[in-house]
């Protein structure tokens, strides 16, 4: 189940390791600078600065209520939908601040997709239309383009073989695990550059979870992934980098194997060794 990572050699210092691990072209696809989110007067995350490197999987871990989901939702401006939420600081996509005046949040979300904790297929649509929804509603009419995109996304999401004979069935008729893979396929159809995943496997059984984890390894060839997870084994299995959040602060960020084997912060160590959280 667990594949050996190319850089899973444990090294004494993070610095060397980073160079070893992440080959030549490690560049941040996204980066936050002093990002804070408030709900009314309540603080959600505070002054978080971290990169999300291109074509890697970055895990956000931490105990419940630590702000990891809040942080994730700030990365594609989902907080715009919550009137009381306020975002300060910068979130850069390829060096461009997505919160800069004049930036169209719709354009941003087209490039930065999201998969949610609970599977949320569109209730009235078929499997096919759920996956095609993004393209169709953006105005794509060409049947061949849609057919191809639907098949590609469903294949990527490891769902094609299970649903290819019943694409006209309601999306809601699928099992929970299948629905979540349907939602992943739906997010992939519009070909986002970054995919944000908010505990995508928390409501799934081990087999569905594994298929989604395998998918991540495949996905990062084309997409940059940030994934919130409660499951530290999962973070260890799928991610290249990990950020540990506590009470709204980013406590530590680094290559996953370093953070797990040689955490710099005692809080991180307490959490990953299971003494806290």
């Amino acid at each position, binding site marked *: 189940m667990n594949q050996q990572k190319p850089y899973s050699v444990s090294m004494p210092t993070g610095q060397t390791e980073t160079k070893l691990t992440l080959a030549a072209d490690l560049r941040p696809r996204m980066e936050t600078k002093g990002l804070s989110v408030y709900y009314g007067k309540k603080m959600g995350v505070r002054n978080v600065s971290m990169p999300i490197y291109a074509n890697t999987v970055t895990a956000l871990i931490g105990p419940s209520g630590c702000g990891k989901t809040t942080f994730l939702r700030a990365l594609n401006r*989902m907080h715009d939908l919550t009137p009381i939420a306020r975002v300060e600081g910068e979130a850069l996509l390829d060096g461009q601040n997505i919160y800069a005046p004049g930036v169209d949040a719709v354009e941003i979300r087209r490039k930065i997709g999201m998969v949610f904790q609970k599977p949320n*297929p569109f209730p009235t649509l078929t499997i096919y239309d759920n996956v095609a929804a993004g393209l169709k509603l953006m105005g794509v009419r060409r049947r061949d383009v849609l057919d191809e995109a639907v098949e590609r996304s469903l294949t990527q999401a490891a769902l094609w073989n299970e649903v290819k004979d019943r694409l006209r069935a309601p999306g809601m008729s699928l099992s929970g695990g299948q629905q979540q893979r349907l939602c992943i396929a739906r997010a992939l159809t519009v070909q986002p550059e970054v995919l944000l995943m908010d505990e995508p496997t928390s409501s799934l059984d081990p087999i569905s979870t594994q298929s989604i984890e395998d998918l991540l390894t495949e996905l990062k060839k084309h997409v940059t992934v940030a994934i919130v997870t409660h499951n530290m084994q999962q973070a260890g299995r799928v991610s290249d980098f990990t950020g540990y959040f506590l009470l709204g602060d980013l406590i530590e960020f680094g290559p996953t194997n370093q953070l797990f084997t040689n955490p710099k912060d005692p809080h991180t160590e307490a959490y990953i060794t299971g003494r806290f959280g």
Partner: protein
Amino acid sequence: MRPPTDIASAIPKGGNLRVRRVWNVVMVILLLLGSIVVLSPLIAVLGAVFVNGLPTINLAFLTQEFRPVGEGGGGLLHAIVGTLMMNLLALLIGGLLGFAGGVLLSEYPDHPITPYLRTISDLLNGLPALLKGLVIYAIIVLPTGMFSGYAGALALAIILAPIVLRSTEGVLQLVPWSVREAGVALGLPRWRVTISLVIPAATFGVVTGLMLGFARAAGEAAPLFFTAGGSQFLNLTLGQPTESLALTIFKYANEPAVLRQEQAWGAALILTSMVLVASLLARWATRKYN
């Protein structure tokens, strides 16, 4: 440390099975009685309309216009046509306005006009239908100098709109928030998400609300007296005074001639059936469409 409390012994005993079974039967009977009490007025009204109205219904009653009592009393074609025309126009105007308002209240709660719209709609909802008729009388009938079907339809539209608005808002709120999030996260504009993903998920409820408003408007007589004005002739346009079944019922029921009173029952039955058929048709169509 204190010894742990024995939780099991702390939970009150639920009595034995026989006692619980008796309670169950008693409660089910009470619920049944309650249902009967609530439903009986409805059944009584529908029953009375059916029993008293059915004998007057025949082809002539449905296809003839008004005639004096001495000439057989005629039929209600003029009222049926008038009702249909005025109510359909009212449904179109009031339904659209109410629907649009409901979408605004549900999907754009931060829009600056939302609080005003909510207040206006609450106010309109509480305003007696008679007053709404008077408003139309003042702004349409007086300036044009005549009663007309258009004025009647407008009065009905004002009655219908707040009902549709409230029900639309309610059923849209039932669509899970996650549907909107999923749509927005795909990079779709909010309006597109509303039109293509949220509203379709609530079609059935929206249509039910429209039918509720339609039924309410179809039963209104008071505001039509000084807007539509009533008529004894068949009009195929709304530019003239127009009859409505609700008006007919009121007028005929107050006439001394027994024939007219019987015809009033007949009109009531036709009106009831019209609302029923419209609502069944609408439901059937929505189901078919989905």
